C-alpha cells in the first residue's frame, strides 16, 4: 500500500520503500505505548521521526484494518457523550510477538548497515552524509 504513501509536496527525504517497510513496526510500537486512534498515531509518527517520515494520512487506515485482520490489534468504537465516535486500536499479545520479531529483524538490518558503513569509511574517507544526499 505504501508505494503512494509519500507526500509529494514536501521534499522527498525517506524513500517510499523504506516508509512502507517501517510502517507496521512503527504503528505496532506506537500502539504498544498504549491504546490510540488514527489521527493520534500519525501525530506520534511525526513526532518520533522528527517530521521526516511523511505518510499520506488516509493510508494509515487500510493498514490498521490489515493489522486488525492479522489479529495484531483490536479495534473498538468509542462514542463519548456529546462527541463524535472514534475508533480506538489496542495491541494484542500476538501483535506484541510480531513487534518483537520485527524489532529483532530491524536490529539485524541496522547492525549490518552500521558495520557496512563502518568498513566503507575505512576504505573511502568521503563523508557519509555527502554520499547519501548526493
Amino acid at each position, binding site marked *: *500500500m505504501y508505494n503512494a504513501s509519500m507526500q509529494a509536496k514536501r521534499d522527498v527525504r525517506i524513500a517510499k520503500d523504506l516508509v512502507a517497510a517501517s510502517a507496521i513496526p512503527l504503528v505496532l510500537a506506537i500502539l504498544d505505548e498504549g491504546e490510540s486512534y488514527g489521527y493520534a498515531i500519525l501525530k506520534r509518527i511525526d513526532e518520533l521521526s522528527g517530521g521526516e517520515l511523511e505518510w*499520506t*494520512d*488516509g493510508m494509515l*487506515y*487500510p493498514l490498521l484494518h*490489515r493489522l486488525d485482520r492479522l489479529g495484531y490489534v483490536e479495534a473498538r468504537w468509542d462514542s463519548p457523550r456529546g462527541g463524535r*465516535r*472514534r*475508533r480506538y486500536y489496542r495491541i494484542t499479545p500476538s501483535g506484541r510477538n510480531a513487534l518483537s520479531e520485527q524489532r529483532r529483524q530491524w536490529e539485524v538490518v541496522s547492525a549490518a548497515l552500521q558495520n557496512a558503513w563502518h568498513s566503507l569509511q575505512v576504505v573511502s574517507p568521503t563523508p557519509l552524509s555527502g554520499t547519501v544526499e548526493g
Partner: protein
Amino acid sequence: MESTMDPSIEAQIREWRSYLLRRNTIHHIDVDELEDHLRSQISELGAAGLDGDESFLVAIKRIGGVNELSREFARERSSQLWKQLVLAGDSGRERSGSEYAGLLVTICFAICAALAFKLPAAFGINPFVEGTSDSANVDADASFYLRNASLLALPFLIGFLAWKRSLPARVIAGLAVPFIAAAILVNAFPFQRGGDTEILAAIHLPIILWLVAGVAYLGGAWRADAPRMDFVRFTGEWFIYYTLIAFGGVVLVALTVGVFQAIEIDVETLIGSWVLPCGAVGAVVVVAWLVEAKQSVIENMAPVLTSVFTPLFALMLVAAILGMALTGNIIDAERDVLILLDVLLVLVLGLVLNSFSARDSDARPTLMDAVQLVLVVSALVIDVLALAAILSRITEFGFTPNRTAGLELNVVLLANLVWSAWLLSAFLRGRRPFSDLDRWQTTYIPVYAVWAAIVVAVFPPLFAFD
C-alpha cells in the same frame, strides 16, 4: 473534541463523505473513521490560524486521493478473502485440527448418507441395475426410490447441520417429525404405479424436507426474517456448488468408463449402481460443508452469476412476450409446455431471490434493480398467460392432479411476483427501503412449505391416488 464547524465546511464534509461512499470498497465505518481524522486535522489547522476553507483543503490533501484510498481498501479487503479461505478456524494450531475434524465428520455423514441410500438394496430393492430382474420389479423399485430418495438422503444433511450448530436434542426430535410423517404418508398411500399424484408427491416432498433442513441450518431460529435470508443464500450457493460438482462428477465418470473400456473391464454396472447414486447423495452433505467452509468463493461468484443472468433472462422473457404479442400465438396448454414455463418461473424467482440475498440493503437503486423489475414484470406477464391457459383447460376438461398442481404453483408464484414488482418499483421511486423486499421474500417462504405439503399430503387422496 467536538468543535462546531462553519456550515459551509460541514456541507463540504458531507459532500466528501458521499463521494467516498460511492466507492464500493470504502465502507461506512471506514468513512466514519476518515471523517473523524479529517475533523481532527481541520480543528488543529484552524487552531494554528488557518481559516475554515484553507484547513479543509489542506486536510483533504493530506488524507490523500480517493482513488488511491479506495484501491488500498480494495486490496486489503480482497486479500482478506483469500486469508479467510485458507484460515477458516479460530486461531493458531487449533485451526488446522478443528478444520480436519470438521472435514472428517462431514465425510462420515456423507458416507452414512450414501450407505443409507443403498440400504434398500439389501432388501432387494435395486432399480439401478438393468436386466437383473423382471421389468415389473424394476418398476416397483424405481417407484420406491422416486418416493423415498429425499427421505433417505436429507436426514444426513440435517444431521450434519445439527452437528454444526450443536442443536439441542429437543429441536432435533422436532425436525424428525416431518420426516417420519412424510415417510409414513408416501409409503402408506396406495399410489397407482406411475400415476400423476405419485410423481407430484415425489417432486414436492424434497421442497418440504429442504425447508426442514433450513430450520436446522438456522439453528432452530427460523422465525426471524434476517436469518431466513441467510438460508436463502445458503440454498442458492448450495445449488451453484452442487451443479459445479455434478459437472465435474459427470466428466470423471465418463473418463473412468472410457479408460476401463479401453482395458476391457466392464465397470458400467458398478458405476451405475454404486458410484453414481452414492456420489450424488454424498455430495449433498459435502456441498453443504463446502458452502460453509469456503463461503467466500461462492460469495463472490453468486452475485456475478446473478448479474450475468438477470439481464439475459429478462431479455429472453421480453422477447417471448413480444413474440406472443406479434404473432398472436398464445401459450399452448400442453402439459410439457406448462411444466417448462413453471420451471422457468421458478428459476426466475430463484434468480431474484439470490440477487436479493447478495445485495447490500442500504445501497441506493441501481440499473440492476431496474433490470430486475423488468424481469419480475415480464415473469408476471408469462405467469398470468400460463394461468389463463391452465384455467381454460380446467374449464374445458376438468381438474386433474397435474393441472391443479400447476394452477396452485402459478397462483403461489403470481402472488409473490405481484407484490415483488410493486415493492421493487416503489424502491426504484425511492418510496420504500430495499429491506421491505427482503422481508417480503422471507415472509413468503412458509407459503412454499404449505403448498408443497398440500401436494404431498392432500392431493393423492383427493385424486384417488391416480
